[in-house]
């Protein structure tokens, strides 16, 4: 890092940066297209199985086509799903957000409507419509290989402004919100980063490489497994719930003792 900061004023720094930028952009573009192919081939067994795709299409027509269109081309009620990838379906359907219960500011999480196999079949069908982010490899979900401290730093820089420092969730505009991440499965966290569901931005592999994503997941898992060292968490909401507690619970205890102290013994 030191060498970099010393050389950043070099006359050719700008040129070098431009070249670097072009190289990265071009490289990523070609990489992205091949990665999808590569991942598609890795998961070939399940996600490219024609039987699964066919079964997925049947499920899609029966459950999703009303809003997303009979060929997933999208309608006024729902966006096109061509090119959203298997990860998107795995996240939206796997967390119960889709099929949507009702139109609102944001799709609510609810118990999943489809089992794992049906979700996979739906994902396989949607993935067959056009290239998109694939379901993450197990390698990137293995939190033992992640670095929670680094993940924590990435989380605070990239995620905490919406999801709260303790991943307890937070408000967005006009009724939208960033949900709590407590108890969310690693693959769904990963898929959310690659697909950017609802109002969430996409954290592509150019932004956070798969290892970074794994670090973030490792941080979330470590954070959750350690519990709350100081006692009940009061919802992980910081000073507001603490203030509310002292004004309600704390004062109730005190006032009860005051009334007791000043009451006559008779």
């Amino acid at each position, binding site marked *: 890092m030191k060498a970099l900061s010393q050389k950043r004023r070099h006359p050719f720094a700008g040129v070098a940066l431009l070249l670097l930028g072009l190289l990265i952009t071009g490289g990523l573009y070609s990489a992205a297209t091949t990665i999808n192919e590569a991942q598609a081939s890795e998961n070939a067994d399940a996600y490219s199985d024609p039987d699964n795709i066919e079964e997925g299409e049947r499920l899609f027509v029966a459950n999703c086509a009303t809003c997303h269109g009979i060929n997933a081309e999208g309608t006024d009620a729902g966006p096109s799903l061509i090119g959203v990838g298997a990860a998107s379906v795995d996240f939206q359907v796997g967390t119960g957000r889709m099929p949507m219960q009702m139109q609102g500011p944001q799709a609510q999480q609810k118990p999943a409507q489809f089992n794992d196999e049906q979700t996979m079949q739906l994902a396989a069908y949607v993935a067959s419509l056009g290239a998109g982010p694939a379901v993450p490899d197990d390698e990137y979900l293995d939190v033992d290989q992640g670095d929670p401290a680094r993940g924590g730093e990435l989380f605070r820089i990239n995620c905490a402004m919406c999801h709260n420092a303790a991943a307890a969730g937070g*408000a967005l505009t006009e009724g939208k919100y960033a949900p709590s991440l407590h108890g969310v499965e690693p693959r769904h966290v990963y898929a959310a980063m690659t697909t950017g569901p609802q109002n969430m931005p996409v954290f592509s592999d150019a932004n956070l490489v798969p290892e970074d994503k794994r670090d973030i997941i490792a941080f979330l898992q470590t954070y959750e497994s350690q519990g709350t*060292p100081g006692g009940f968490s009061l919802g992980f909401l910081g*000073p507001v719930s603490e203030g509310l507690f002292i004004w309600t619970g704390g004062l109730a205890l*005190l006032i009860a003792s005051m009334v007791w102290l*000043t009451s006559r013994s008779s």
Partner: protein
Amino acid sequence: MSATKEKYTEEQYLEVDQYQPKTGGGRIANYVDTRVGGTSIVREFGRKVFPDHWTFMFGEVALYSFVILILSGTFLTFWFDPSMATTRYSGSYAPLQGLEMSTAYATALELSFDVRGGLFMRQLHHWAALLFVAAMSIHMLRVFFTGAFRKPRELNWVVGASLLILGLGAGFTGYSLPDEVLSGNGLRIIDGMLKALPVVGTYISFFLFGGEFPGSEVIPRLYVMHIMVLPAMILLLIAIHLFLVVTHKHTQYPGPGRTERNVVGYPVGPVYAAKAGGFFFIVFGILALISGTFQINALWNYGPYDPSPVQAGAQPDWYIGPFEGVLRLMPGYLGDFSLEWVIPTPWGGNSLAMPVLIPMIPVALIFLGMFVWPWIESWITKDTKERHLLDRPRNAPTRTAFGVAIVTNYMIMWGMGSNDLIATHFQLSLNDITYWSRVLFFLGPVIAYILTKRICLSLQRKDRETALHGDEAGVIQVSADGGFSEKHRRLDDYELWTLVSYDSPEPTPAQPNAKGKITLLEKFRARLNRAFYEDRVAPVSREEYLEALEHDHHEPEELPASGVGAIESRDH
């Protein structure tokens, strides 16, 4: 004060010197007493009488919280190092290991995870701080709504208001010390407010932070304020506050046997000393229970301070909430009209950040109003008497209504400080909450004023009714001719006294001054005075009460319609 001023003879003085206690304990006690003068101290303070009422104990809670703050804070200073020097964390909290952070944050983490009992003491310190300010606030509201700030206690009210401000300062400086992202965000807001001040803002900010924010100076400076300057000032003012309480003697609620010239209650020694001493341990116990079971300021979540991230749910401690809320409430634009003005100057332009400056006005006005209220009220009411008997809030309807209006205004600003959490937890739109709060900011106090005043007057009327006709006994009688009536239970004299013995002054018109001229200011005062007193429910007079007693003997005659003639209006 009650000690009699007798003249002692020379022999009597010598007798004291020659007194020989018989027991070992007695000898020790006598040794100390002859050197410290304990007898006269106990005689002076031990006989102070304190009235018993639970609402009188909030001040005590604040005092005890402060003692706990000093005890726990001293413990924290043994480990906390308020340095902004960079270090690499190597403590036992895994998710932060290997990260660069300031020494302040690293030692705060060390206190939390690697010092035995450190986390408990940190939590105790923080919970005690929240309670300290909460107790002061409620104490202050009690004093306000019962009129205990009136003559001769105006100056003590100012001491109390200063204590509240110092409490806010002590709390905020403490909140900023651990140097994590949350407290850094708080300091950034302070920095923004300072920089919003025209012309001098930037200089003040650079002066405070020792350069551009965040600099490397501010934490040590805040630390000195937090552990030395502010506690010393608080301690001094507490001493003055308590000294004045002893001088004035305690106020008391109206009741039989209680007058402006006495205090009915228990003496300090032994009853109150035991009660108050015991209460200290109750407060300590409750705070310890909370600190042991409820996590507060989990600073390991926030990460080392870095000026770039702001986290969702970033709020100050509750007592700074209104400041945060009013900033969230303030629009940056009115329609297309930007509230940020640039004053053209020869050297470019000076930016006036009105969206930051304007919101400070209402908060500043509330705090300023708090300081001067005793004089405003006595100027309006022309009340120059000493007041040791408290008002029941309903018996001062205008003051109560005004107080509730201000509290409502404060609460709206306070609530807006957590508008994001209100949005997520009540499934509302953040934008709608903000828009409605902007309306309620102006409308809420007005509604609160009208409602409170009506409620107070109604309660007074109810008191009047009860005084004249007694409580409904719940016994229904059927008369010989088939009429139904309910028996009323007359109040006993003690109950009656509390309901009828209050002042209800009539408005005083504008008075000419020495030159015989009615000034504009005096006219204004008279208008305020009329607003203060024109709606009034007169206390039951002796004649009215005797007349009501007469009625009792003529039962089952019809009772007079309730409340009629009870309100005197200005065109009476």
